């Protein structure tokens, strides 16, 4: 493990949360060190937001503890909150206020003195590239600008731990890249970052360590290299298909050297020790079964392969 040297900034142990019959978070423990970017990777409904809500003191855990920067975090206490910057999954900004007013409001709420606040607001507007539009109501902003402001508010009070909950969902590619770059820059400044996503490329690109979460449980944890090594030298074959595939899947699964076969909406995802080598036989099974084949992708071992290996499910929705 790369950067868990000294005292962790955030330490979460044995978190549980149930909503009725749903065990949304089931014994989650995490440690995030200074300057570390930790990725929580998992599909929708895995329990990422619920974990974060307990970490940020929004939700009372059924069991378990959260300590951030040495202070226990509890919903009923305001202690230790300044150490956390939260960027919620939904755009949490006020549409009838300008970008500047949004920032100034939260600066005041975090108890920043006026002069410091206005200086910091100016800085953040510059960082998120909204200086020119600072006086405009945010309802007039583009989607990307809103996303940037959403993140800027989380950064405003210079937290030691920044939590970003799926910040790129529904964002155009250009804004998405800008967001990823700014997250990279932040961890360079020594901020600890907890980043949740269901995009494995983002986790791979940004995160020093990744926890893979499914059904409320962290099922694997480590660097990308560590995680992919755990499944051996397997390649991932992704084939877009149309039509009947059930019989073909059975045949493919029975082939030698095939570790796992999963399916999402329009594609089969196959883990094979030597994907390219098996490809002709796989395609043969599919066309025999009457399926039409679109594009075919063979990739080196990656996090999606890990997820498939661990859960038997494809990671994408």
């Amino acid at each position: 493990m790369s950067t868990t040297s000294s005292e962790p900034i955030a330490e979460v142990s044995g978190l549980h949360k149930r909503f009725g019959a749903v065990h949304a978070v089931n014994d989650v423990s995490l440690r995030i060190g200074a300057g570390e970017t930790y990725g929580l990777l998992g599909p929708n409904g895995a329990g990422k937001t619920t974990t974060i809500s307990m970490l940020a003191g929004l939700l009372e855990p059924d069991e378990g503890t959260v300590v951030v920067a040495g202070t226990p975090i509890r919903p009923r206490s305001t202690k230790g909150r300044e150490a956390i910057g939260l960027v919620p999954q939904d755009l949490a900004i006020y549409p009838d206020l300008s970008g500047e007013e949004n920032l100034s409001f939260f600066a005041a709420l975090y108890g920043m003195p006026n002069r410091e606040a206005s200086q910091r607001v100016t800085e953040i507007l510059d960082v998120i590239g909204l200086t020119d539009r600072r006086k405009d109501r945010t309802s007039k902003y583009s989607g990307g600008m809103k996303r940037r402001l959403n993140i800027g508010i989380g950064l405003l009070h210079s937290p030691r731990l920044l939590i970003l909950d799926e910040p790129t969902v529904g964002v155009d590619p250009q804004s998405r890249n800008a967001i990823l770059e700014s997250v990279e820059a932040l961890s360079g400044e020594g901020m600890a970052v907890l980043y949740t996503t269901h995009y494995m490329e983002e986790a791979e690109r940004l995160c020093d360590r990744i926890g893979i979460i499914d059904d409320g449980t962290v099922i694997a944890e480590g660097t990308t290299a560590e995680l992919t090594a755990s499944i051996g030298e397997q390649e991932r074959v992704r084939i877009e298909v149309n039509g009947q595939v059930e019989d073909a899947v059975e045949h493919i699964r029975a082939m030698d050297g095939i570790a796992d076969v999963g399916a999402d909406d329009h594609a089969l995802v196959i883990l094979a020790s030597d994907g390219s080598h098996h490809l002709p036989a796989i395609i043969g099974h599919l066309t025999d079964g009457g399926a039409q084949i679109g594009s075919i992708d063979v990739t080196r071992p990656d996090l999606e392969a890990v997820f498939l290996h661990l859960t038997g499910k494809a990671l994408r929705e």
Partner: protein
Amino acid sequence: MIHAVATLVRKDLRERFRDKSFFLLGILTPLVLAFILDLVFGDLGEGELEVRMGVVDADQSDVSSQLGEGLVALDGQGGFEVTMLGADADADAVIDDDGLDAVVVIPDGFGAAVNSTDTPSLDVVENPDRPVQAGVVESVVDGLVADIERSRLLAGAGEQLDLTVPADSLASVLEVRREHPGGEGLDVGARMFAGMAVMFVFFTVQFGVTTLLSEKESGTLTRLLAAPIPRDSVMIAKGAVSYVLGVLATMILMVAASVLLGASWGSWIGATLLVLSAVLTAVALMAVVAGLAKTAEGAGAAQAIIAVGLAMLGGSWFPVGEDGLIGMLARLTPHYWFLSGLEDLPDAASWTVVGTPVLAMLIIAVVAGVPAAILLRRRLTP
């Protein structure tokens, strides 16, 4: 805590003043509605009110001529013009021809009735085109008959009645009637206006408490809960915003009614106290609804129904009966107490007359406020 509440309140007020709905629903709509009602129900103010009445003495007795002279003596006082008509004049014809507002007819046998055990009565023939002025005359005559009844009781059997006394006191009776032609207390238009104001404040206060639900839906509540501020400060701020907006809107309406339409509320201290406590009650009641509702939209719909329902029950639209089940239910609404306080205020010697209504409203506010706080507190989750 105070800093957090102040910051939240400032933010919310800025938002509310920026989107137009507060002004539209809180101020403009009730104002326009009140103007329309005013057109329908006649003058709100009556500084210029002039009343032209005729008197027909069909009785020609000592008593009736004394009374007739008393009425004619009012001529020229406080906007009254009184003409004595012939004993056999046709009141309807005179009204048609001369455009009088009303004619008081002292019927044949009036004097005999006064001096016996029969109940004497006076007739008022009204000009249908001048309902406000005719109403003044009618209420003057009602007061006069009551005065005569009283003097009869006091005088005892057989004694000669002195009807010049009621005619004297008539001047002061008239003075009061002239200022409040709707009857006792507030005039009809002003009452309508106050009814609209107290009904609409139930809509206005939604812009505070209900935004707790919309912030929850939009996700900004998550941010507020993550901030280093006490959770209750969010709830308190929402209540405070409701209160400020409600008081602001209602006071603007009351001042507008007084400046633009000449409505007279009597003591401003009393009226302000009534507003302060009515709005508090409205905030508490609407907060209960917000606390129970699933969504902001659902809360808005339920609040609209309850706002209109309470307004009808409490007499915002038309005066409700004082007795029976209806009267009892009416007393559970702030509207009833607000309006009854305003009714008493113009004639009262001091603003302290609003004590009972204010107390009643404060009790309703507490009874609703406690469960509201408990319910809303449970909504403070991401």
